């Protein structure tokens, strides 16, 4: 049994001649919460759909729980919980009927946990799915995905449409799951504070490539935003590699650098700056910097 629950090898996907994913390589180790980030249309959902075998790749291979995605057996599917973006539930079914269908088709079903979730979310069993609010649909989808005690939980923007309380409940639930040994979560979201709160490892998609793939703490250490003041006007070029962003204004220069290290520190010091202060960056700041065009890769390899 591999230590990596999710493996993506050189994944390429074209839609109508447009390259959405351009050679993605990714591994998610067992027991991690992996936060996959990217702007709208960056290919997050496409990666998940390819992983689940819902979409064929143009090139490359993907594996879930040691099984190739294009050939996932029902048994492997039974070990994966999935909350889809937009919540693919059968809209004309009553909640109770949908639950019964999922229960009957599942190989294992944790009734106790499921009932606890239903009570927590206060989901009405007698209403049709289409009559539920978006938030309620998200809760129902999440409850169905969780009821099978999944080894791998794939969440595609799961908190979309949830109110603050429900979002908090959801995140706490995700943390609870991860505390159960061996559980892994692959998590896509636009709400970066959610990802920051629960993810161990971050991947950022931009321009069809995975420009960031490293642990969250590592990412915060590696991407530095500096305010540098020079005695005279700021130099136009620092002759430094992996500069994500650079803004000069008189003596002041604000630069964002990827993979910051001692060598780069030494290069900067050759320009004899008067002062150099670090500007703290949240995940949101890093995300914005990393999703700008021609971003340099930030990886831990």
């Amino acid at each position, binding site marked *: 049994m591999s230590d990596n629950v999710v493996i993506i090898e050189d994944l390429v996907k074209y839609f109508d001649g447009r390259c959405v994913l351009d050679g993605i390589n990714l591994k998610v180790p067992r027991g991690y919460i992996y936060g996959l980030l990217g702007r709208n249309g960056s290919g997050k959902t496409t990666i998940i759909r390819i992983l689940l075998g819902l979409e064929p790749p143009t090139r490359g291979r993907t594996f879930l729980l040691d099984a190739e995605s294009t050939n996932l057996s*029902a048994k492997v599917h039974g070990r*994966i919980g999935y909350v889809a973006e937009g919540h*693919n539930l059968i809209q004309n079914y009553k909640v109770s009927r949908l639950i019964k*269908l999922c229960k009957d*088709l599942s190989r294992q079903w944790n009734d106790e946990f499921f009932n606890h979730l239903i009570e927590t979310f206060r989901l009405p069993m007698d209403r049709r799915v289409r009559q539920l609010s978006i938030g309620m649909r998200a809760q129902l989808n999440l409850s169905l995905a969780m009821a099978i005690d999944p080894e791998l939980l794939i969440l595609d923007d799961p908190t979309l449409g949830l109110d603050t309380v429900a979002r908090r409940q959801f995140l706490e639930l995700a943390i609870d799951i991860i505390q159960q040994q061996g559980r892994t979560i692959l998590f896509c979201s636009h709400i970066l504070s959610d990802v920051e709160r629960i993810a161990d490892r971050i991947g950022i998609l931009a321009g069809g490539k995975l420009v960031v793939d490293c642990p969250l703490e590592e990412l915060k250490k590696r991407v530095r935003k500096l305010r540098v003041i020079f005695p005279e006007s700021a130099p136009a070029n620092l002759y430094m590699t992996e500069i994500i962003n650079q803004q000069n204004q008189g003596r002041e220069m604000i630069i964002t650098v990827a993979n910051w290290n001692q060598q780069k520190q030494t290069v900067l010091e050759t320009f004899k700056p008067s002062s150099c202060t670090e500007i703290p960056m949240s995940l949101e700041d890093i995300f914005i910097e990393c999703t700008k065009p021609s971003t340099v890769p930030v990886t831990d390899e």
Partner: protein
Amino acid sequence: MFTLIKKEIEDHIAYFIGAAVLSAILIALLISAMYQPEPRDMPVFIGLSIPVIVILIVGFPAMGSTQMYTDRTRKISTLLSTLPVSRRQILCARIITGILAILTLLLPLTITMVILFPLFTPPIQMYLGLVWEIFAAAFLMAFACYCLGLLTGWNSSKIIPTLGGLVLTSILLPLIFVKGFGLHTVVILLLFIIASLMRTWHTFMSTSL
């Protein structure tokens, strides 16, 4: 698999009710026609075949088409594929449901014919294979029409599923009138069914859900 078949039957229960009601009406008409004094009213027998033909042309392609169209638009298979269910199982359950609907219409009718024909035919040796030939041809005809519905139904446009099955069925149906019942018809229909199912299978297995 049983759960999937049950789900398909529940989702398309209207077709089963329709088939059962039609079958009951046809049986009633058949019995009443048989109990008429000689000479029997032949238009009644001819009239009996009309609803069957209409159902074959409209009903079964519509059922196949509806199954695939609602799946596509409501993303039912997308949900099912994320559960411990394979696409192969989804499609097999769907086809079995179609066969069950056809049998709901034809089986009671055939049983009635098997019982009634020896009672009311002239006292000569009856060709026993006749009823089975009629049943086989009608079943294969209905199944071929249903398969055309499946084939044309996997489409996000409303026009192709509605008209596609109907047009193809209208082309297929005259075959039975030209060739009559028998081995030729059975072979042609079987080939037609295999081709439709293979195409449907390939499309459903390889498409994005």
